[in-house]
């Protein structure tokens, strides 16, 4: 299938919705729906995103429709920004549909500081964060966990860190799934996965991962912002990372295992990276148990980093500064969810859960507004805080996008601008930057991403989530 054919088969069915009907390809089980306006459509339809979304629509048990979020772009197997749900009894689970960085996600800490109170503290703070949070392509974490400790991370999630003094009960309450996805089975996590992850708790990794010190620049809904504790000038910290090598190896193990087992299940795939197994089968259950373990490791990873951030704020800006976890959301995960009385295994690959106010899993303190959703822009561009809408349950299985979305390859980004130029441009705007590699800085340059303001506007127009606040960047620690 060439790229143009999927695009030409699409119909614009709403202001911000394009649809590729089931008749486009005989193996499609459900239609493919893409949330985009004309401008985003022109980007999404030029790489392999649509072809990949159509491929996902062929998987057994696919329900209702498969979706691409406004930040979607080409991935491998699933497109990044893809959402698909499969019947929990008769459908499949696909490791590639979650991705290698299981439970990569974003959390926001809200400080008691106003930006005007930072004084000269910003540069030493960012430096302290870069020292305390291992990042880049050659650094591991702060701890090395033995197998018993890893098992507790896998099965207890953030609650284990409450016991270890690195989290509070409120941290767990304000984490998706309370920081512990049910169904974790440590016996299904290989030795190789354990060996890759045991030294990486509290580390950021490389690529597009980051810790940013930001401040609230604009409020869109004063009442809702007050519920979230946000006001103009408030200093916040955004943390983006995942399950590190542990999650990567879990995915590697099960993609390989399921790929070899495809004939047994009689499933024909358009792309081997979509390797899957019925969720109710032994390999399906084994993957889910390992994936949930890795998801819980990821929540603990972001929590340990939060602990380090709190320590750094205390050391540099004083012991009275507090940092409250606003929320933590995954954007690479598979979860068993109830949708209209049907139990579905919802895969979000580069997509954020966005529950509305009335959903029982929205934390009690946020039920008047909805679950917080974070959409970071490109490096230095700032981020958005949104809240989920009840309507998103119908429109996208309760999902919104996870970022601005790349519009350019890493190679092209490097050819356009050297990392030193990118760094200087950020510093000229008063942003403090720490990055272990200028090459990686160039790959994450703002011009390599879509415009986050526009992407978020389309999210809101699509009824997936609504804007509450926009932040600006003060300091960046890049992975």
């Amino acid at each position, binding site marked *: 299938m060439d790229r143009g054919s999927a695009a030409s088969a699409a119909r614009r069915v709403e202001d911000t919705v394009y649809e590729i009907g089931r008749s486009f390809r005989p193996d499609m089980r459900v239609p493919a729906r893409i949330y985009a306006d004309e401008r985003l459509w022109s980007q999404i339809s030029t790489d*392999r995103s649509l072809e990949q979304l159509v491929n996902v629509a062929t998987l057994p048990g696919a329900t209702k429709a498969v979706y691409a979020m406004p930040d979607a772009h080409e991935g491998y197997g699933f497109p990044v920004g893809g959402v698909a749900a499969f019947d929990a009894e008769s459908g499949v689970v696909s490791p590639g549909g979650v991705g290698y960085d299981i439970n990569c996600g974003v959390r926001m800490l809200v400080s008691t500081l106003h930006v005007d109170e930072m004084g000269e503290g910003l540069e030493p703070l960012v430096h302290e964060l870069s020292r305390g949070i291992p990042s880049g392509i050659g650094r591991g974490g702060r701890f090395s966990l033995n197998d018993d400790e890893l098992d507790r991370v896998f099965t207890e999630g953030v609650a284990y860190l409450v016991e270890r003094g690195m989290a509070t009960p409120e941290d767990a309450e304000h984490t998706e799934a309370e920081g512990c996805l049910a169904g974790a089975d440590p016996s299904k996590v290989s030795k190789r996965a354990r060996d890759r992850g045991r030294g990486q708790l509290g580390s950021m990794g490389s690529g597009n991962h980051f810790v940013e010190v930001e401040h609230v620049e604009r409020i869109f809904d004063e009442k809702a912002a007050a519920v979230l504790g946000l006001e103009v000038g408030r200093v916040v910290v955004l943390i983006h990372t995942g399950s590190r090598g542990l999650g990567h190896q879990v995915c590697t193990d099960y993609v390989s295992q399921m790929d070899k087992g495809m004939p047994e299940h009689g499933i024909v795939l358009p792309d081997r990276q979509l390797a899957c197994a019925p969720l109710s089968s032994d390999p399906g259950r084994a993957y889910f148990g390992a994936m949930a373990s890795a998801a819980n490791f990821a929540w603990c990873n972001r929590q340990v980093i939060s602990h380090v951030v709190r320590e750094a704020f205390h050391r540099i800006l004083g012991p009275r500064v507090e940092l409250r976890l606003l929320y933590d959301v995954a954007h690479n995960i598979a979860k068993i969810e109830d949708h209209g009385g049907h139990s579905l295994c919802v895969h979000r690959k580069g997509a954020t859960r966005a529950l509305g106010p009335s959903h029982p899993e929205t934390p009690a303190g946020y039920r008047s507004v909805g679950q917080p959703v974070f959409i970071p822009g490109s490096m230095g561009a700032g981020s958005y805080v949104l809240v989920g809408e009840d309507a998103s349950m119908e429109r996208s299985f309760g999902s919104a996008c996870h970022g601005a979305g790349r519009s350019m390859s890493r190679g092209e980004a490097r050819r356009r601008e050297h990392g030193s130029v990118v760094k200087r441009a950020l510093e000229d705007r008063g942003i403090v930057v720490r990055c272990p590699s200028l090459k990686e800085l160039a790959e994450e340059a703002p011009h390599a991403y879509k415009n986050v303001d526009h992407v978020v506007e389309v999210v809101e127009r699509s009824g997936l989530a609504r804007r509450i606040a926009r932040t600006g960047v003060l300091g960046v620690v890049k992975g």
Partner: protein
Amino acid sequence: MSAEAELSSGPPDGDDQVSGHTWLDHTSEISVRLHAPSFPELLAEGARAFSELVPEHIGSADAPEWREFTLEGDDRAGTLVDWLNELVFQAEVERWVPSELSVREEPHGAGRDGIIHVRARGRTLERPFVLVKAATLHGAELRSTPRGLEAEVTLDI
């Protein structure tokens, strides 16, 4: 995925007796196209391409001891991906990347692909190399060409 070359290794086009690789653009990941006269040589070229990703700022020292790996399977594209994932693990956990390889195929018989034996030595890294999360099966296939075999593999980074 566009097919624009970023960096190539190997002979100029037209020399069909040796191996090489070309890095390809991908919106969010990286892909590599490998070519070699035979499957064992394709695996060796994959290792050369992977080692090329390790930046100089991660210091390293020669590791004189030889390491041995055995690869088995009737699906050669899958075996290539498995081999690259072995290298991902070695670089991250063992802090080791190969620089000198000998790859040979032991006939299996009964119409099946042979067993691959890799003997390699290389460098010990000062720190784990964690850039590559995994080699994926996305679009993985081996093609016969006039100069031998060709394959593309997408690496998640």
